């Protein structure tokens, strides 16, 4: 019988080493993927037809300065040695110095990242809180009008050029109706009034009880977050619907109904409980893609986040900044991926043993 085997001491010891093995495997996977990420970033950096020396010294430097910097940067070394050099620096958090801000890239990333984080988090909250219930209801009402409405809402979300919607949204809600605030995170009058703690303006202002700043920050946030939230909703409601449909015709649902569980509990506890793991994965991935993919939204809304930082650096040939930003986003994505994998093993009783 399974039972007896499951309670032996030997099995227990095996289980512990199993967890250690899993952790090791995840760590190895993480390291390997990150290494690949750094390698590709490095390659892009070498392929770009921008003279890295010129970028550092400026075009009015003397020939001696040029030669000295060239040697410092290790341009003459063979490519694999350059890679080791680059890797060593990146591991220490040294992404070089940004040419346009003349700060270290790490410093810049610390400045810009919270803005992206705030936007992505707000959007994900909107998307999850509205999208999951929509998906569940669409699945339980399959083929009825509410299902079609959800489908259309989702497909419209998938099809929207977000930068264009942002422009039109600003035109209508800001210029014409004056319901929301314009581009940026704050009106200039409020800038610097709140001490940054988390870097999230809504959180910081709420913490310090500065409700004027909070209202202003919120009125700036609401349009871009609403827009990205709608995209998230489109995705999450579709995925939830499809997961739920997969569960609702399972035998255990029939069992639950046969034993007299009310329909609402069948749906929201039994079926939803079984899609929690894949759903969390989907939400995490969509969160990651918001962190990386807000480039266009940030451009349209002049939102001082990572996306804006990367594009602006790109147009100014500031490769250190571009590569640092890309690497950060890639690393977040990889980490979230691995995190989901581990979560799956923790939450799903079938994966635990």
């Amino acid at each position: 019988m399974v039972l007896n085997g499951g309670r032996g001491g030997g099995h227990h010891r095996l289980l512990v080493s199993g967890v250690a093995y899993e952790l090791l495997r995840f760590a190895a996977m993480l390291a390997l993927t990150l290494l690949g990420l750094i390698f590709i970033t490095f390659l892009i950096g070498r392929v770009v037809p921008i003279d890295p020396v010129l970028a550092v010294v400026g075009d009015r430097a003397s020939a001696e300065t040029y030669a000295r910097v060239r040697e410092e940067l290790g341009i003459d070394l063979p490519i694999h040695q350059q890679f080791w050099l680059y890797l060593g620096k990146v591991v220490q958090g040294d992404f070089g110095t940004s040419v346009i801000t003349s700060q270290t890239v790490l410093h810049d990333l610390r400045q810009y990242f919270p803005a992206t984080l705030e936007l992505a988090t707000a959007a994900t909250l909107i998307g999850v809180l509205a999208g999951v219930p929509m998906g569940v209801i669409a699945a339980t009402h399959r083929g009825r009008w509410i299902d079609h409405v959800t489908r259309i809402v989702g497909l419209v979300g998938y099809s929207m050029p977000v930068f264009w919607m942002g422009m039109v949204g600003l035109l209508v809600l800001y210029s014409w109706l004056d319901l929301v605030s314009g581009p940026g995170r704050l009106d200039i009058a409020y800038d610097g009034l709140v001490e940054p703690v988390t870097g999230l303006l809504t959180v910081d202002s709420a913490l310090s009880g500065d409700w004027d700043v909070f209202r202003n920050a919120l009125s700036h946030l609401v349009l871009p977050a609403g827009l990205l939230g709608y995209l998230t909703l489109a995705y999450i409601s579709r995925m939830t619907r499809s997961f739920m449909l997969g569960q609702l015709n399972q035998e255990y649902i029939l069992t639950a109904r046969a034993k007299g569980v009310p329909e609402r509990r069948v749906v929201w506890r039994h079926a939803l409980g079984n899609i929690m793991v894949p759903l969390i994965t989907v939400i995490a991935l969509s969160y990651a893609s918001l962190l990386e993919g807000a480039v266009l939204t940030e451009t349209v809304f002049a939102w001082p986040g990572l996306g804006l930082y990367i594009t602006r650096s790109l147009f100014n040939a500031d490769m250190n900044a571009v590569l640092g930003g890309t690497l950060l986003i890639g690393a977040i994505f990889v980490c979230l991926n691995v995190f989901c994998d581990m979560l799956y093993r923790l939450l799903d009783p079938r994966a635990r043993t």
Partner: protein
Amino acid sequence: MSEPVLEIRNLRIAFPTLRGSLEVVRGLDLTLGRERLGIVGESGSGKSLTGRAIMGLVPPPGRVSVDRMSFMGEDISRLAPADFVRLRGRRISMVLQDPKFSLNPVMKVGRQIEETYHLHVGGGRRQAYARTLEVLAAVKIRDPEAVYHLYPHQLSGGMGQRVMIAMMLIPEPQLLIADEPTSALDVTIQLQVLAILEDLVRERGMSLIFISHDLGLVASFCDRVLIMYAGKVVESCLASELDRVQHPYARGLLSSVPRLGDDRPELPTLERDAEWAQ
């Protein structure tokens, strides 16, 4: 016989297809007393859907129509879905085929049994827990407290099915529908599970509808047998009089049951006649 437990007149279940509606159950009549009734038929004969129709659980887009369906004298043919919930579990219950799929994979089995108890009996947590352990013991599970905390995938098939039976019997329903309850189990385990089921049904004076494709099993386990073919009852008789059946399909079924000491070179193939389905 006193008032029947279940009475069905002219049950029809149809599914829409590309070429019009397809009737899967076509005018089934059934009267059930305090007895164990077996329904036998091949897959697609409509026996499982009949069981589900009694519980109001025919999956969409299936459509059910029935002239009369009454349970303990109460007309349930026009019952709204919300009212069916009152009946399900509490008074009519069902055991499904494969515990691997029919138990909620992310809920501890103890909690699943408790849930049924809470729904129909109520009572505090401690009481539910105690009752759950009792009923687990009643289905001959040796270490109920340990099993309480297991997840379905940690159970063997036989144990899973016993948990299923415990879960369905805890509110003491008057009618149990067992839909192929042992088909997914090993032969040796089958008999154990059947013995447990038989004991519990007899002890509580429950009526039982036993749906199976296994004629031999049904004959030995039930009082009366219905044989279904293509959505109709083609034969109905006492289990003890099975060898006197008339219908050619039923005869065919009987003659293809292998017997010990029988030296037929090969089993006869089951004959079918389009006319039987008319």
